[in-house]
């Protein structure tokens, strides 16, 4: 399920409830979002506050009008969160379901350990994007920094720009797609053939993210599964 476009969101909830972080704190905001009295919210003047919309567990829309700090939409369940700005460290960390869209850039550890849902970063994402991911789908419009998908266990990471060094280090079963250049690949991460089923899932993910790249432009990376059993051979267990 894709993140709603702004027009769709407005149609669904014509009058979002406005919460102004210049007037109340993040605690008051999250207390409302955890026991919502409306289905749609607009957060004004976020000014990089941390933990905005962390722990949402209902099917609500939250629009953050500006930059968010660390852990925005952390552990999201079912919520649809859109950040009209950039997001700090750990946006949508451990997301379970729902969707998070960052219209600007995302800092380190975007989507870390996420177990479900869709994270879209329209701009670039910094280091450790998708670290330890466990089933989340992440689509990044631009580049990602080094150590992307470190120890990634499951889910899919789509990078429409370049990927930094040590991509997919110690990766398990997550699938990585990169359209641009890649730096070094991390331990046990290898390029793999792109088959029809991969083109199909890429198309689905790009559509959900609202991007119209040709899936044929992407390369696929995943685990060589050479570190799955401890032996003395590779000296790294």
């Amino acid at each position: 399920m894709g993140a709603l476009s702004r027009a769709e969101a407005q149609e669904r909830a014509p009058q979002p409830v406005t919460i102004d972080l210049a007037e109340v704190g993040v605690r008051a905001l999250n207390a409302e979002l955890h026991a919502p009295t409306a289905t749609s919210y607009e957060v004004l003047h976020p000014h990089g506050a941390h933990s905005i919309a962390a722990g949402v567990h209902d099917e609500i829309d939250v629009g953050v009008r500006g930059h968010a700090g660390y852990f925005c939409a952390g552990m999201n369940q079912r919520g649809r969160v859109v950040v009209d700005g950039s997001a700090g460290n750990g946006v949508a960390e451990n997301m379970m379901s729902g969707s998070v869209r960052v219209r600007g850039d995302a800092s380190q550890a975007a989507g870390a350990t996420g177990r479900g849902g869709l994270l879209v970063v329209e701009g670039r994402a910094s280091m450790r994007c998708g670290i330890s991911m466990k089933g989340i789908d992440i689509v990044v419009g631009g580049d990602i920094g080094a150590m992307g998908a470190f120890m990634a266990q499951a889910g899919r990471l789509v990078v429409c720009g370049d990927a930094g060094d040590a991509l997919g280090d110690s990766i398990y079963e997550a699938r990585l797609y990169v359209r641009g250049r890649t730096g070094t690949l991390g331990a046990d991460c290898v390029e793999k053939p792109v088959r029809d089923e991969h083109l199909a899932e890429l198309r689905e993910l790009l559509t959900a993210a609202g991007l119209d790249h040709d899936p044929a432009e992407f390369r696929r990376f995943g685990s060589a599964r050479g570190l799955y059993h401890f032996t003395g051979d590779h000296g790294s267990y």
Partner: protein
Amino acid sequence: MKDPAERGLRESATFDRATIAAIQHAARTGVYDIRGWGAKRAVPHFDDLLVLGASMSRYPLEGYRERCDTDVVLGDRHATRPLHLDIPVTIAGMSFGALSAQAKEALGRGASEVGTSTTTGDGGMTDEERGESKTLVYQLLPSRYGMDPDHLRAADAIEIVLGQGAKPGGGGMLLGQKISDRVAEMRTLPPGIDQRSACRHPDWTGPDDLTIKIGELREITDWEKPIYVKVGATRTYYDVKLAVAAGADVVVVDGMQGGTAATQEVFIEHVGIPILAAIPQAAQALRELGVHRKVQLIVSGGIRTGADVAKAMALGADAVAIGTAALIALGDNDPKYAEEYEALGSGAGYYDDFQDGRDPAGITTQDPELAARLDPVEAGHRLANYLRVLTMEAQTLARACGKAHVRHLEPEDLVALTVESAAMARVPLAGTSWIPGAGR
């Protein structure tokens, strides 16, 4: 064969038989030893301290009669729902995966019977343990296996694990034999692989980030739950100061003797400091910050008796946690399985191959037949009995020192038997007023 010593043979202190066997094993296999349990070498420990009972200058309380309370409140610094435990002995985090579901359930039952808490582990929360644990602490570890916000909200407290005494600086291991389908699913891993969990948290680095992470966890759980920070004992003075600065409600310090489910032997025996050396550092850090007894200190690593509990508390802990001893109470290393332990190349009293998944006692295994040997109800009772004994022993010593609460024990009630333990525990060598290193 006659006893080698009787034949005048001399064993090398440097190359003793265990060392020789380890070299032979390395030469044969090319892999290092991974095992469970904790450090097996002797290090300065609570046995090196003695309690000064009351006499002329102190007034004792009557054993069994006069009141000597044992309850403890944990996490009342920031959380709106702190924990109230009846006894100051808690069950340490041990993962489902390392332990069978039956063992986890038994730990919950035993702890609940005597009004204390138990803890999840590196593998998420099972229904069995949540169901049977009146008070359950939920761990947030670097691996984040099975991390679920619903479980955060269902927990009574949250423990952020930075490390363990058995392996400070190292991540967890779980070998393929123990990755059953259920364990694999909970951890989102392929069944049967040798799994190593991360040694660093994925989404924060350093104490400033930790402050923000704790803020996020408080937000997600609406500031209800106490938040613990657990560290392996190394640079304890600094770690405790940083944990408090980051906003921890409770700090957990695990000494080098602390148990593990599976770690490299070299790590278990050579990294970290004994709990005896760590407690005074932790207490000093808390005192200097003016939060001793306000941010509670839980210590672990080799706690076996009520004397250990009393001494740990006298040195400044608010409560202790037990791992290995709790498993023994459930039935680990039971002589009734002596033959089976021997068939596995070990023996009752020596068994430490928790990584192997073939535990005859059904505790450190995922094999359904072996696990079914452990009756969670009976094992839970045994643990409850043991916890009662620990508590009564600690009370006995506290009363002898004239304390109406075990927490009132203080360093002044202790002396040391050895120069090393005097220096580490910062109490005088028995019969002297000498605390080596004091004043520096």
